[in-house]
């Protein structure tokens, strides 16, 4: 093989190197710092700003940024303004851990928030526990974070997978039927969510006709849907999220499966509904927070403030997660008048969110025994035709308090070990 201007000097080795590099493309990410200044109190936020969860992650950041702006306008934390440092985990565990270490060791952040991805959030929790930094998991749902893997320094804002399953299982069983088939993302979040739903179904006397474990980032669900329809269940439960949810729902409707089998699921997000064509916005789901609620104090102002930041777009559950995570840290630090992680972690136990932060009717508080936020589930139905506002794509039928969907602390498997 000769080399020259026109020669074919690529080899199998080069092609294979290319394949390895392309594999690297999935995990590599540009180094992003979205805010850096001279302000003394730094809070680090790690979220997948690129990759399949980029849309939900950017909404979490919008919420956190609004909270920073509001808190700083009121005097900051202990008289110091907050600076939010945002890092991209690129939906990769290794990157998420590396960015968390960088924020703590190099940028000297006082607190950490993140990640959307359960696997990354769990790995980050190992780092924050080792470094003794107070950490709020904004959007990773897998049970272990406030269950068997719970840590003294880690709190969580979003629901657990068990809470999600409990919020909707009874309704699906009574309304749609007793034979369920699952389309489940093949990672920590999907596994625990499917286990919780299957356990509830078993208690209710139903049967699981199958569980299709799908790789994260699947674009074509046809093979799984063929299998699911052949099993003839009463309900097809979609546990996938993000672009996977969008692709799966689109294909279900294209195949006409929704006309033969009830389509539903647990967690649904406004980001996914917005990415769907009207005919694919179907099914019964639970939202973890919704922007349209009658008579909820401070909600209108919050929606208006977010619209100003996002070019008119309404807040989603993810926006509220980011907002609440940051506000929780600031409120407890101001109340306790300290930045000491152990003292603040103790103080957050049973800490109740004020009306201007909780933005929902029920009592919302961090449970002392497992550090889980007792937040509501908004159960209802996706709307193919928007109800007035083009972003009003979900009808909330019931709002179930976190106390009612969460298992008792003794059932979570959480045993908190506090530092000496």
């Amino acid at each position: 093989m000769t080399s020259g201007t026109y020669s074919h000097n690529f080899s199998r080795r080069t092609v294979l190197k290319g394949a390895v590099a392309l594999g690297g493309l999935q995990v590599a990410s540009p180094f992003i710092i979205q805010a850096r200044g001279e302000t003394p109190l730094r809070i680090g936020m790690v979220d997948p700003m690129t990759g399949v969860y980029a849309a939900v992650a950017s909404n979490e950041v919008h919420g956190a940024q609004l909270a920073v702006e509001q808190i700083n306008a009121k005097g900051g934390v202990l008289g110091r303004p907050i600076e939010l440092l945002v890092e991209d985990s690129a939906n990769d565990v290794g990157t998420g851990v590396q960015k968390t270490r960088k924020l703590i060791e190099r940028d000297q952040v006082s607190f950490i928030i993140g990640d959307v991805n359960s696997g990354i959030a769990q790995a980050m929790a190992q780092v924050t526990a080792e470094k003794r930094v107070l950490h709020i998991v904004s959007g990773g749902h897998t049970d272990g974070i406030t269950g068997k893997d719970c840590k003294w320094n880690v709190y969580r804002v979003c629901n657990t997978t068990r809470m999600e399953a409990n919020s909707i299982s009874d309704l699906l069983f009574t309304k749609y039927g007793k034979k369920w088939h699952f389309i489940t993302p093949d990672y920590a979040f999907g596994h625990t969510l499917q286990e919780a739903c299957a356990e509830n179904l078993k208690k209710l006397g139903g049967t699981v006709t199958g569980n299709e474990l799908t790789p994260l980032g699947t674009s074509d669900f046809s093979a799984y849907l063929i299998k699911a329809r052949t099993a003839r269940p009463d309900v097809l439960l979609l546990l996938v999220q993000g672009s996977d949810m969008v692709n799966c729902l689109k294909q279900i409707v294209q195949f006409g499966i929704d006309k033969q089998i009830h389509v539903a699921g647990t967690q649904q997000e406004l980001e996914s509904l917005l990415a769907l064509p009207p005919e694919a916005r179907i099914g019964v789901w639970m939202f973890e927070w919704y922007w349209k609620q009658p008579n909820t104090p401070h909600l209108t102002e919050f929606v208006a403030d977010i619209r100003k930041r996002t070019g008119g777009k309404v807040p989603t559950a993810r926006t509220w997660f980011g907002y609440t995570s940051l506000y929780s840290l600031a409120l407890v630090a101001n109340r306790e008048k300290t930045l000491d992680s152990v003292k603040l972690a103790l103080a957050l136990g049973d800490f109740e969110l004020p009306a201007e932060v909780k933005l929902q009717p029920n009592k919302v508080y961090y449970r002392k025994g497992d550090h889980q936020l007792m937040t509501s589930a908004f159960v209802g139905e996706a709307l193919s035709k928007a109800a007035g506002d083009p972003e009003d794509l979900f009808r909330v039928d019931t709002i179930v308090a976190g106390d009612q969907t969460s298992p008792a602390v003794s059932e979570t498997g959480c045993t908190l070990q506090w530092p000496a």
Partner: protein
Amino acid sequence: MTQLLLFNVTNGLIIGTFYVLMALGLSLILNLSNVINFAHGGFLVVGGYIAYSITPYVGFWGALLIAPFITAAIGLAVEWVLIRPLYGRDPLYSLLLTFGLAFILEDGTRFIWGAQGKPVTVPAFLAQPLSYDLFFITGYRLFMVAMVAISVALLFVLLRYTRLGIRIRAGTLDLETVAALGINVRVLRSLNFSVGVFLAGLSGVLAAGQLGLEPTMGSGLLMPSFVAIIVGGVGSLPGTLLGGLLIGVASGVTAVFFPQASEAVIYVMMAVVLLIRPRGLLGEEGMMT
């Protein structure tokens, strides 16, 4: 079980045809220009988003026709400015360049159109399944297969019967001799690159109708196309065709028995082919040394 298997083989063939369209563009560029175009997935996304943007003005059919040409024009500009200076160098230079370009295209689409996914609606008559039993064969999926078949046929006609095609094929075998015969190799490479990117743009428009749009969708669809080329054989367009169909079927059949391995199976196939027949199933001796 037999019915389920047959369904999935058919379904795999449908999925495979899409990989074929992607892989053919990738293969064209690789064969003639020696460039492993990692940005191919990025061009796919650009094609899809361009179609999304112009659909309100020209409709679905107009977008299907126009968007691939706009994408090809962008590809031509990229080749002209960025890739051409690297032809004389080690292929790793162009590999690294397109690797970076893939990031730029993905982040660029995110910057322009936002991270939030976009819904794309196809004409209603295409959005229906053929029958109750063959529910997985929708009008749109058949349309995609037809579009791929037409594109492949036109590409083969172009390569076999036109002067440009004959020069591209000759260049694939021995570019130095082609240059020595007085053919403008620069123009040949540019046209070949833009044909490859045209196919990426067309794939993007078709994928948008099937899946909707997300800035990240290109990287997910690129890897199977890359595998299709290696399985089918670098340097062989019929091999690429075969490779694409084979990995589609393998993925579909695996989903019946071991769903979580339906993605991994194509890489296992690639490893097996590389071990047993390193040049690929229909690859030419010497192309994969």
